[in-house]
Every structure is written in C-alpha cells, then in structure tokens.
C-alpha cells in the first residue's frame, strides 16, 4: 500500500465551538472529503448541548487518508451520524458522547502513534476502528493491553481474534460462508470452485474456512492461488479457470488487482458460458468500481444490503442521507460501516446496563451479554464469552437495469452464529 505519512498536513485543525464550518469542511469540499483536514493533531467533535455530567469520550481510529480512505471516511461519517442520534436522544445514562478522531492513514506504523494519543492525551473510554487486519493487529496492543481500554473492531474479517476486551462487530467467515456456499452448490448447482486471492491474511484464512464448507457440501476446489495485491495481468489465471472447467469463482482478490481480473474473466466469456462469480465483501459501493455488465450476476453475502426490506434500516438510510447529502461515502456493509453502527450501539447498551459506570471491566462485562434490537439489516446479539456477535446475514445477487447495478436479496437467515473463539 502507499506510504502516506510524508504528505499529511501538519497543521492541526482544532475543534470549533460551532458545528457549522466543520460540517461544511467535511461534507462538501472535495479535498476535505479525502480527510485532509484531519492532520497530525487529531480532531474532536464536542456535543452541542452542555450536560450536567462529564461527557463519555469515544475515540475513532480509522483510515481517513491513504489507500483505504473510502472505507475510513465512511466509518467516520457513520460514527458522527450514530453519535449525533444518541446525543440528540439524551445521550447514554444522561451523559453526552464526545467524539475524537485520529487518522490511522492506512499505515499501521503511523497508526500506533496516533492511536496512543486517543488513549494517553484524550483518555478515551472506548476506541472503535481499524479496517484492515494489519491495522487491527497494530493498534490492539496500544489500546487493549498497554492502554487498558475497550476496543471495538467493526470490519468483516478472517476471524480468530480472541483478545479479551476486544469486541468484533462485523461478520466472520462462518457468517459469510455458511449460507452462501451451500446455496451456490445446492441451489445454483455449481460444483467446481476456483479461489483466486490477494496475498494477505484475510483471503488465506477465509479460504481455509470456505474450502471446508465447499468440501462438506460436495463441491471441489480446483485451485487456490495468491497474487500480489496490484497484479495487472491475469491470463494465466483465466487459462487455469478454463482448463479446470471451473464453474464458480470464489474471489478474494481486492482492488486494485481486482478490476483487471474481473475484466479479463468477463472477456473470456466465463459468465456467458454459465460460470458464476462470487465475492463476499462486495457491497453496493464497490459495484461502482466496475462497468455494470461485468458485475451482473455476482453473488455476495453480507450483514446488510440497501435492498433489505426492513423499515428501521430504510429510516436509517433516509436520516443518513439527510445528514450527508450526496456523499461520496455511502452507508453500506462492505467498509465496516454497519459494524461501526453496531459497535457504537453495543457500547451504548452496555453503558446503560452499567448505569453510567465507564470502568473497562464493568462495560466489558455488560458488552459480553449485549444485545441491540435494531440496526442496519436487523439487530445483533453478543455470544457470551466469545467477543463476536450473532447477526442477520443476506445472500444477494447483482442485477443490472439500464446500466445501473443493484443487489437483489435472495436468501436471508436470522441471527447467524459467528462460530469464533
């Protein structure tokens, strides 16, 4: 990934008492949308109303700049949105939430120092954030062990994170595979799988789990192969897909390597000849990274899709659109946004349960039994002792109408077990 630390601005933009200038800076200007205002000094969003009790300090550590910036900015917007809703409704146990942002800059080396600020200078009660697994690995120690602070990780990921006081609110491999793969094999009727993958930890561990599910359901993995993240030419892979008579590509290649792969796959006539492409992290936003015809028929499995028929989710989208009109960073499942919403709501529920006691052990104990009734795609429930949550999962397929892509939800399952720890 790119090295973004050298060109970050060195002028901190202090939080201003009024939300006006700040809101405009974040919401509309193209340059600030890339997060250029969140520099080395960090940034805070104070609640507007004065409150009798001290505010709860919530730290957000996410990738405002660098390669993961689209995901990080979406996360930050969802965090502001969710916290504003909670504060408007009177806060948690009578206390407002104060938000602090630190840019992790898509670079774990930069992140560690910045995250430490949230802990040591801001003395945050809880930290949410991190998108890539490398980032989680880098910042969990300064937060959880040395920082003795509660950490919530919002992204779908490869599983196997069982650190105490670290709660994962995104889907795990079991949640993404247990419904989708049997569906592909039994209902769609595809048996011969190829696993082209980007060469890092998430695809490796996800594939390990997916392979088990494929084989348990009578399918077969023809090849599993790893590529450099920015590979630009895939004719060798296309050749193997053709030679191996693959009828289902279970893809974990990620952008920027993904676009040339999908194009070459499409040009080879794979889909035309009955092949099926599935990509479990692909949400509505990522569909736009490709020409529509290349995405048609793609299967995904996530905790939320915009087309999920749920009044609460629809209202949430409407409110989000009101706060961030015409945003570049939609509230979708693939970029940890749904996990961010869920994480903040879990924290809210936990602090309510402790009656405002913010000590880590008390909140963590309440989190462990946490439950939220509603959220994007439905409610969620922590599995006690496992630090992961049950949530609704949806299998969806991409359809194209007049050059526009959308997901149609095909199957859903309520409260799917994360099967972790």
């Amino acid at each position, binding site marked *: 990934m*790119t090295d*973004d630390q*050298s*060109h970050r601005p060195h002028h901190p933009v202090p939080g201003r008492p009024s939300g006006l200038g700040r809101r405009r800076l974040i919401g509309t200007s*193209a*340059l600030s*949308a*890339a997060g*250029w205002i969140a520099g080395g000094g960090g940034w805070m969003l104070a609640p507007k109303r004065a409150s009798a009790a001290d505010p709860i300090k919530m730290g957000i550590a996410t990738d405002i*700049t*660098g*390669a*993961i*910036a*689209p995901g990080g*900015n979406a996360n930050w917007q969802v965090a502001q949105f969710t916290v504003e809703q909670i504060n408007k409704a009177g806060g948690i146990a009578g206390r407002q939430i104060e938000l602090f942002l630190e840019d992790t800059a898509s670079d774990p080396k930069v992140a560690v120092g910045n995250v430490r600020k949230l802990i040591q200078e801001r003395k945050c009660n809880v930290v949410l954030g991190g998108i890539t697994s490398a980032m989680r690995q880098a910042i969990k120690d300064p937060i959880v062990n040395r920082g003795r602070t509660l950490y919530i990780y919002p992204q779908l990921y490869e599983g196997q994170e069982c650190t105490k006081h670290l709660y994962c609110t995104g889907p795990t491999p079991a949640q993404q595979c247990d419904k989708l793969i049997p569906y592909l094999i039994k209902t769609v009727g595809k048996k011969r799988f190829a696993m082209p993958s980007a*060469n890092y930890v998430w695809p490796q561990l996800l594939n390990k789990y997916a392979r088990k599910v494929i084989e348990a359901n009578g399918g077969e993995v023809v090849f599993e*192969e*790893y*590529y*450099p993240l*920015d*590979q*630009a*030419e*895939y*004719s*060798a*892979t*296309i*050749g193997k897909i*053709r030679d191996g008579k693959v009828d289902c590509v279970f893809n974990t290649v990620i*952008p*920027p390597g993904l*676009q*040339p792969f999908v*194009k*070459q796959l499409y*040009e*080879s*006539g794979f889909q035309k000849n009955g092949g099926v492409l599935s990509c479990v992290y692909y949400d509505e936003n990522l569909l*736009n*990274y*490709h*020409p529509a015809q290349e995405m048609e028929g793609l299967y995904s499995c996530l905790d939320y899709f915009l087309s999920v028929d749920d009044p609460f989710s629809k209202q949430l989208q409407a409110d989000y659109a009101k706060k961030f009109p015409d945003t*570049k*960073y939609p509230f979708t499942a693939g970029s940890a946004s749904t996990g961010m919403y869920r994480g903040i709501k879990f924290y809210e529920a936990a602090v309510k349960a402790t009656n405002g006691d913010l000590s880590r052990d008390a909140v963590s104990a309440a989190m462990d039994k946490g439950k939220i009734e509603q959220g994007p795609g439905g409610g969620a429930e922590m599995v006690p002792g496992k630090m992961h949550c049950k949530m609704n999962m949806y299998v969806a397929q991409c359809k194209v109408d007049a050059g526009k892509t959308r997901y149609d939800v095909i199957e859903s399952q309520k409260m799917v077990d994360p099967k972790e720890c």
Partner: protein
Amino acid sequence: MSIEVKLAFDVLAFISVMVLIVLGLGVIASMMGIFNFAHGEFVLLGAYTVYLFESFGLSAWAGILAAPVVLALIGLVLERLVIRRFYAAPIIAMLGTYAIGLVIREIVRGLLGGHYKSISEPIAGVFTVFGVDVSAWRTVIVLTTVCIVAGTWLFLARTSVGLQVRGSLENPNLARACGISTTRLYAFTFAFGAALAGLAGALIVPLYQLSADIGTRFLVQAFLSVMLGGVGTFEGPVLGAAAVGGMAAGLPWIVIPVLADPLVFVIALIIVKLRPQGFITQGRL
C-alpha cells in the same frame, strides 16, 4: 486451441501497455538524462482527463485525444518552472520529480475521494476472428502502440527536429554553437514525453479503472525496462518494456503468481549484470 490464441493475445496486449507507458519515460530519460519519477502521475493525469471528459458528458474519444495535449501543456509548464533547474543535478531531479508526482497523486486522490472509478471502453466487447473472441479495446491498444512506436521513431530518426534533438543529446555545446536552441528543444522533448504518458494513461484506463495509484503500479517496472533496454537509445527502452511486460504476463503460467513479480526483477537484474549497457549499447539515434 482458441483459448491459447486469446490468452497469447492478452499477453501481447499487456506488452503493448508496458511499451506505451515506458515510451514517454524512455524518451525523457534518453534524450534529456532526466529520470522522471512523476511519469506515473503523468499517466494518471492522462487517465484523469478521460474521466473528466466523461463526467462532463463528452465523448471518451475526445478525452483520449485531449489527454496528450493537456499533458504536453502540463509538461511544458513544469519544464519551464521546475525541471530545467535540474539538468545539472540528475539525483536532485529524481527527488524533485518524485515530489511533483506525490503532489499530483495526492491531489487526484483527494478529488476522487480515494475511490476507484470505472471508465468504460469507447469500443466495448469482443469480436470474433477465426473462432477466437478478441477484446476490441485490447486490439485498439495493440494497434495504437505499433503506430505510436513507429511514429515516434520516424519523428526522431527522420525529421529535422528529430535530428536537432539527437544532436543536442550527443553534444549540447556544439548544438548550441550550431544555432540550435537547446533550452527550447529540452522543453519540447519533455512536453513530448509527458504527452506520450498522457496518451498511455488515457488508453489503458478502461482496462484498469481510474485510481490515484494507477501510474505508480507501473512505474518501477517501467524504470526496470529502461535500465534493461539501455538509456540513450530509442529502441532500448521499447525492447526492455516488451521483455519486462512479456515476463510479467508469462511467468504466472510457470511459477506461482506471488513469485512472478520478484522473478521478473531477478531475471532483469541478471541480464543487466551480463549486459550493463542494456540491450542496445550504441546511442544510435
């Protein structure tokens, strides 16, 4: 059989992409002795020009034609303001152009919000020749590359401006003594190299989708190509690009893909060790 032909064609198309990208870099490095680390961002700006044209509802073809013109102008301005101060210090030139590239890349990243943008091919789809489905846009790229390489070679080898450029390369003092304005020629050469980069970016962006890092991905391999082919000639970098592109696309057939990338470098470095001056040793242009 047909799939093998098709995949061989894909490899040829990738070689063409490499040659297109390296051409501008090679021209500037060979003719001016400047290793332009902003070359990847010139490619990016070419791609971005097409995106801008599309988002204003204009035809992508207009964008592709405009990209080299826009980049020539940007190149000209940059040469006049910045690059000309670097001629005496090639190392500083590398750092300076790297800085320029960084500024361009991050501005574009900001404008794109860090997203990837899909640019569709002006000629989409495939056509069938002797039972083989061939991607139309890859065909356009292969043909354009052949034309550009031929055109550039004819221009440098057969026109009087080309002769002046080559003369200034061989002996700038003598060229100036003969009444050739080397400053103007250098400005022109840099703009020309930038224009080639812009055209390359405009042509390849439908294959890869626009992102701020589209140029960086190719930059290191492009430098390797120039090194492999030999600085100071026109054919050298082109041959080097063909070799590097062919290896990058061909090696994943033989070894596991994560090994292919480093292997390209290992092989190239061995060749450079055996032929330190590159494939073409004589500065014949």
